[in-house]
C-alpha cells in the first residue's frame, strides 16, 4: 500500500483563492516532469517555481511548484506541493491529470500516516495524529457509498449487481463447459448496462449540475435601494471581471463570478417601483419576477432611509419560498423609526443591517453565499462523487470499454474477459466492500442449472 504515489487536495475547496495539491511517493518527480511546463529538468528542492500545468500541450493553469526530496519532506518521501487557482474545475482537471500519471487518490489521513511511519513526527505529535486520522476516516466512512441514501448509492448498487452478474455469466462459461450448450449466455448486454451506469454517475459528478453552471443569485429590491452597488461590490471581489454597467438598471445585468473559488451567477435586476411608468418598464418587472422564480437564492434589499412601502411587501411575497438573505441597506443614513417599522413588519425573518457604501457588515452577504454552497453540498451529497470515487469509476470504465469488442469472441477469450471483469469487480469492491469468489459461485448455482 505504501509503495504507490498518492495525491490529494490539501486545502478545502472554496476557502482560499489558492488551492494546494500535495503529491507524495516515488513517482512524484515523474509526475511533475510530465504535467508541468517551464520547469527546469533539475529542480532544486525547496525552491518555489512559477510554471504551468499542461494537459496534452494545452495549458490548464499557472502554478507554483515546490519539491521536497526524501527524506527531507513532510512524509519522508518525495513530495511536491502544487499551488493552483482555487477553481473547482481547474482543481478537478489537475487532480485528474496527476492520477492519470501513475498516482492514486490519498486515503484520509494518509499523508500524516506516512509521515508517522517514516518517523517524521514524534511521539507527542502522534497522539494528535491518531485523532486526526480517526476524524478523517470517520468523514471518509460517511462518504462511503453504502452509507448514503438516494440516487448515487442506488446507482452504485445497481452497478455492483451488474458486475456480479457479469462475473457469474463469464465464470459459468468457464467452469461448466459441458452444461452450457443448454444456455445462451449473453454478456455484452450486461457490459453495456454497466457502462451506462458509470457514464451517468460521472456525468453528474461535476460538483452537481448546479455547481457546474454556478449558483444563481438575484439581488432584488425596489428602485434605488442599492442593488447595483452591491452587485458591483461582489464583482470587485472577483478581480478577473472588471467591466460593469453603472447607473440605474433598466433591465438586468448578469455576471458569473467566483467567490472563494466557487462559481456564482449573480443577477442585478431593475428596481421595482409602485408607479409603473411605461410599458417597457413593466415588461422589465415581469422579467424580474421570472428571474427570481428561477434563481437558487435571493438577496432581498430594503432601504433604511425610506419608508417601507407596498412594493417592498409585494416583492417579499414573491421570494417567500426562496432561500434568501434580507438586508436593510444604507444603515449609515438610517432613520430609527423606519428601521423599527421595517423590523416589526418582518418579525419572523432574520434581517441584517448593512451599508454597501460605507462597507458595513458586508460579510453577511459573503457568508450567506458560502452557506448556500454548503447547503447544496449537503442536500445533494448523494450526488457528489469525490475525487477518489471518481478515479475508481474512471478506472472501471477503462476495464469495461474494451470488453464489448472482446466479448464478440467470448469463447476464445473467456478467461481474459473474466480477468478484466475481476479487475472491474475489485474496483467496485473498493467502494462497496470485497466481493468473494463464493458470492460468484452462489450466483452460478442459483441462476444456471449446472453440474451433474
Amino acid at each position, binding site marked *: *500500500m505504501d509503495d504507490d504515489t498518492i495525491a490529494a487536495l490539501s486545502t478545502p475547496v472554496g476557502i482560499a483563492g489558492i488551492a494546494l495539491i500535495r503529491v507524495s511517493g516515488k513517482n512524484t518527480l515523474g509526475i511533475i516532469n510530465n504535467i508541468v511546463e517551464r520547469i527546469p529538468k533539475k529542480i532544486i528542492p525547496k525552491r518555489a517555481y512559477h510554471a504551468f500545468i499542461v494537459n496534452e500541450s494545452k495549458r490548464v493553469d499557472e502554478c507554483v511548484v515546490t519539491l521536497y526530496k526524501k527524506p527531507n519532506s513532510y512524509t519522508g518521501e518525495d513530495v511536491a506541493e502544487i499551488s493552483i487557482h482555487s477553481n473547482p474545475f481547474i482543481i478537478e482537471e489537475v487532480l485528474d491529470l496527476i492520477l492519470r500519471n501513475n498516482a492514486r487518490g490519498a*486515503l*484520509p*489521513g*494518509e499523508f500524516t*500516516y506516512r509521515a*508517522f*511511519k517514516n518517523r517524521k513526527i514524534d*511521539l507527542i505529535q*502522534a*497522539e494528535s*495524529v*491518531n485523532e486526526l*486520522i*480517526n476524524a*478523517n*476516516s*470517520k468523514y*471518509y*466512512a460517511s462518504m*462511503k457509498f*453504502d*452509507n448514503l441514501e438516494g440516487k448515487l448509492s442506488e446507482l452504485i448498487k445497481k452497478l455492483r449487481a451488474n458486475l456480479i452478474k457479469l462475473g457469474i455469466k463469464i*465464470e459459468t462459461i*468457464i*467452469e*461448466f*463447459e*459441458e*452444461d452450457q450448450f*443448454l444456455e445462451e449466455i449473453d454478456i455484452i448486454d450486461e457490459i453495456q448496462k454497466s457502462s451506462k451506469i458509470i457514464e451517468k454517475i460521472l456525468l453528474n459528478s461535476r460538483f452537481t449540475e448546479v455547481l457546474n453552471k454556478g449558483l444563481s443569485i438575484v439581488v432584488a429590491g425596489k428602485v434605488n435601494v442599492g442593488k447595483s452597488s452591491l452587485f458591483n461590490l461582489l464583482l470587485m471581489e472577483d478581480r478577473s471581471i472588471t467591466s460593469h454597467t453603472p447607473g440605474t438598471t433598466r433591465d438586468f445585468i448578469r455576471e458569473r463570478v467566483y467567490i472563494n473559488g466557487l462559481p456564482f451567477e449573480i443577477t442585478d435586476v431593475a428596481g421595482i417601483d409602485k408607479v409603473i411608468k411605461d410599458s417597457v418598464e413593466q415588461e422589465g418587472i415581469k422579467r424580474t419576477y421570472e428571474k427570481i422564480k428561477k434563481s437558487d437564492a435571493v438577496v432581498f434589499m430594503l432601504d433604511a432611509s425610506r419608508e417601507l412601502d407596498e412594493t417592498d411587501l409585494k416583492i417579499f411575497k414573491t421570494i417567500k419560498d426562496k432561500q434568501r438573505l434580507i438586508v436593510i441597506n444604507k444603515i449609515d443614513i438610517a432613520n430609527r423609526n423606519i428601521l423599527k417599522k421595517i423590523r416589526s413588519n418582518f418579525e419572523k425573518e432574520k434581517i441584517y443591517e448593512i451599508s454597501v457604501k460605507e462597507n458595513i457588515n458586508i460579510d453577511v452577504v459573503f457568508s450567506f453565499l458560502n452557506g448556500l454552497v454548503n447547503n447544496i453540498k449537503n442536500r445533494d451529497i448523494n450526488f457528489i462523487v469525490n475525487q477518489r470515487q471518481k478515479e475508481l469509476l474512471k478506472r472501471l470504465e477503462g476495464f469495461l470499454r474494451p470488453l464489448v469488442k*472482446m466479448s464478440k*469472441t467470448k*469463447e*476464445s*477469450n*473467456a*478467461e*481474459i474477459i*473474466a*480477468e478484466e471483469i475481476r*479487475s472491474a469487480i475489485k474496483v467496485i*469492491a*473498493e*467502494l*462497496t*466492500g*470485497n*466481493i*468473494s*469468489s*463464493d*458470492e*460468484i*459461485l452462489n450466483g452460478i*448455482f442459483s441462476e444456471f*442449472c*449446472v*453440474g*451433474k
Partner: protein
Amino acid sequence: MKVVVIGAGHAGIEAAYAASKMGAKTTLVTIHLESIAQMSCNPSIGGIAKGHLVKEIDAMGGIMARAADSTGIHFKILNRSKGPAVRATRTQNDKVKYRDFMKNFLEKCENLRVYQSIVSEVVIKNGKVKGVRFVEGNELMADAVIVACGTFLNGKIYIGNTIYNAGRSNEPSSTHLAENIKELGFKTIRLKTGTPMRLHSDSIDWENFEPQPGDDPPVPFSIFTKFKVKNRITCYLGYTTPKVKQVINDNLDLSPLFSGKIDGIGPRYCPSIEDKIVKFPNRERHHFYLEPEGLNNKEIYANGLSSSLPVHIQEEILKSIPGLDKSVMMRPAYAIEYDAIVPTQLNHKLESKKIDNLYFAGQVNGTSGYEEAASQGLVAGINAVLKLKNKDPFILRRDEAYTGVLIDDIVTKGVDEPYRLFTSRAEFRLQLREDNAFERVSGYGLKFGLLDNKLFAKEMRKLKKRKDAINKLRKTKLKFKDRTYTLYHLLKMPEIDFDKLEELNGSKILKSKTLTDVSYIEANVKYEGYIKIQNDEVKRMEKLERIKIPEHIDYSKIDGLSTEVRQKLIKNRPLNLRDALKISGVTPAAINAISIYLTLKTKIL
C-alpha cells in the same frame, strides 16, 4: 520413522506413497484390499480445475495422473477452444483396471505395507500420536497417523425410505473411528452427496443418444507416461423428458432429500435429478451423460441422474426416457450422508492444530472429488515425514498451485457444503495452468525425492524448448495487413492462436508440438500484461499477509470501520490483513484503517 495411513482411497494412496518414498515405514490400512482406489462415483479423473490438480500431483511425483493414463479409455481436453489457463484434461477410466493398477503399484513400493483391517481408534498420548488400534484389538505404533477415510465416518445410505449404515454401497462404515474422532474433541459436520444408477450396457438403445467421442489425438495426463494413450470407448449425451419431470414431481414426498430425512448439506454443483427439477421448474428437459465404467464391464454410469428416490421410482424415471425405457438397472442411485471434520481445526500442513502428528486428508475434510482428495493426501504425506525429519513444512501458496488454493480455502474458511475446486476460486488463475504445472511445482517433487533426476531433466529440456520458441517469436518479423509485426506481437492478438501464427508464418515454429507446448507459449505471450499485474498483486498480498492482527484486537477502537465491517471482522477473526481483505464486504479503506491502527499501536503504545 513410522507412518500409518487410514483409508486407501485417492487421498490415502498418495499420502502412503509419498511417506514411504520419503523413507517412512508406512502402513496403509484399508477395509477391503479389493477396493483400494475405488472410484466410488463417476468413472473419470480430471476436468476443469480438477485436471489442474492432477497435473500438479503429477509434477510433484504423485500417482494419480499415471494411473489415469494407464487405465484411461476416453481422453478429452475441456475448454479446448478457450484460453490455455482454463484448458483442462479429463479421462474416463476403467474402474476395475484403475483399482488393479493402484493395488499393484502400491504392492511394489518399498517401505510400504498395505494392510486389510478396520481402525477403531487413534492412540494418543500427551497430545501426540502414538499409533492406531484395530477392531481386532491389536495396536500398531506410529510416529504419525494420516486419517483419509473418505465418507466412511458414520456413513449412511438413503434410497427412498430405506436407510442403512455404509461407507459406500454395501461396504461397512467406520462407526468406531467416527466415535473416536469425536471423543478426541474434533468438531464434525454432516455432509451429503449422491451417485446415480448404473445401467446394463446391452439394455440401452444407443441410437437415441448423441455420441461424445474422445479427442483425436488423445492427450495424456502424466509426464511419466511413455506409451501412446488411446480412446477405447465413446460416451453418450441424452436428455430427460417432460414425463420424467412429472414422475419426479408426483413422487417428491418419497425423496428423503425433500421429506427432511437428510440433514446433511449436499453439493450444489452435483444436484440430484429431483433437485434440478424442483429448482428449475421452467426447464422441460435436463441433460445427462452415459459413461461406460470399463472395458470388460457392462456397467454404464448415468451421469446427471443421481437421486435418492426409491428404486421403483428410479425405474419409472428410466422408463420415461427414450432409449433407457428398456434399460436394466444394475445398481440403484443413492444418497449418502457422512461426517466430515471441520477443516479449520487443521493447519496448512493438514495436521491437527491440537494433536501433534495427526493428519487428515481428503473427503473427511469436507471436500469432494478424487482429485481434491489426492492432492491433500500428497501434501499430508509429505508433511508428516518432513515433520518427523525436523524439516520445514511444505505449504503451497495460492499463487503457486491449485493445491494451495484448496488447502488454504478449507483450513481458513471451513466448508459449508462438500468443497469442490473451481478455477474461479483462484485469484491468480492465469498463472495456475496445466501447461506450466511442471514449472510451478516439480521443484518440490525433486526436493522431496518423489521425482527422479532423469525425468526432471527431460522435462526441463522440454520447458527450455518452449522458452526458446518464445524468444524466437520476439525476434521474427512478419508482414500482416500492410504492417510489420514481430510474431510475438501477432500472437498477442485475440484472433490469432499458435496454429494460426504458424500458418501466417508459412513454416513451422516448433518442429513437433504438444498441446502443452502450444498452451505454454500462448499463455506466456497472451497473458504477459495480466501476469505482470497479478505479480504486483501477489507482492501486495504477501505484504498484507505479513501484517499480523493480534488475537485480542479490539475492533471497536478502530474508528474508520463501519458497523457492518466491524461485525464481519469480529466474526471471522482474521489472522492477518490479507485474510481480512478476503472477507466479503471488507474494503481496502477498512484495511487501511486497521493497518494505521496497528502501526500506531505498536509504535506508540
